[in-house]
């Protein structure tokens, strides 16, 4: 959507400071579910492996793509950094839930690294957006 397409309603800043938590929750739940399934199929493919086959690789690829797409949307729409960080940590934990039965120091460290990677990715994304939108145009979840 180009800036010229912004409606007059939006230009009058009626959404200033308003935020739809229920819409943010929907996005959050979706990204957490996608993270869980990506972790589940990663576990199935790499650690509970039953033969290198095209099907399992494609399923893992599809899950990763959906998760990343939702991750991008969450970064774009949810401007509240605290909430964003909480969602990202939750999704990293959901990604690692399936590895918990084999919990050890390595799993704990990998989980920590995943949380740090997810957080740095989302913060870098947010910083990119802030640098990109130096004008006052923002994508917002509207109530």
């Amino acid at each position, binding site marked *: *959507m180009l*800036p010229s*397409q*912004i*409606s007059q309603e*939006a*230009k009058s*800043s009626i*959404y*200033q400071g308003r935020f739809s938590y229920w*819409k943010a929750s929907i996005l959050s739940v979706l990204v957490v579910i996608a993270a869980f399934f990506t972790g589940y199929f990663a576990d199935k493919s*790499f*650690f*509970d*492996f*039953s*033969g*290198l086959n095209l099907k399992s690789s494609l399923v893992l*690829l599809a899950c*990763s*793509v*959906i998760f*990343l*797409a*939702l991750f*991008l*949307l969450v970064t*774009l*729409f949810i401007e509240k950094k605290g909430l964003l960080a909480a969602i990202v940590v939750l999704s990293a934990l959901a990604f690692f839930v399936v590895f918990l039965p084999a919990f050890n*120091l*390595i799993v704990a460290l*990998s989980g920590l690294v995943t949380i740090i990677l997810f957080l740095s990715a989302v913060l870098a994304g947010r910083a990119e957006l802030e640098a990109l939108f130096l004008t*006052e*145009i*923002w*994508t*917002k*979840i*509207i109530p």
Partner: protein
Amino acid sequence: MISRGLFEGTLSASSKILKPLMGDLDFSLSLREISTRLVADQIKNQPSLIGPVVSLAQKELTERSIAGFQQQFKSIFGISINPDAKLSVALYDGFLSKINGLKKESRNLLIGVFAFLLFLTVQALSPFIRLIATALAFILYELLMVFGFGALVFESQSKEKIVLP
């Protein structure tokens, strides 16, 4: 750390890739089957051997080849190999015994190296994955905007910026 299935699958895939270097080595066969096949190939190229001598020589050479390999395997991995078990299984057990024999620090380091390799593999694939994910995210974004989930908002609030020259 790595399941038997993953190890066997990786070996099977790498044997296909390394075929020009290693020849036609099938890790799903047992040591006895591989030795028999190799010896049979060698005997085929010896026209001087005929009749019952062939089968006798074949048996003898196979046994010798198995014994030689078993000795080498024991010197490398420290365990003896069952000639009737699949080669991939024997190698897995060999590596497992070698890893279990390592000190805890070395074992953790090895696991760390494996995790790092896995990370690099995913990183290598990431440009391709990123491309598809971005396209999907854009479609979802446009759909969400069309259905009123979000809007482009013009902020009138001024922002202060302090720039240090």
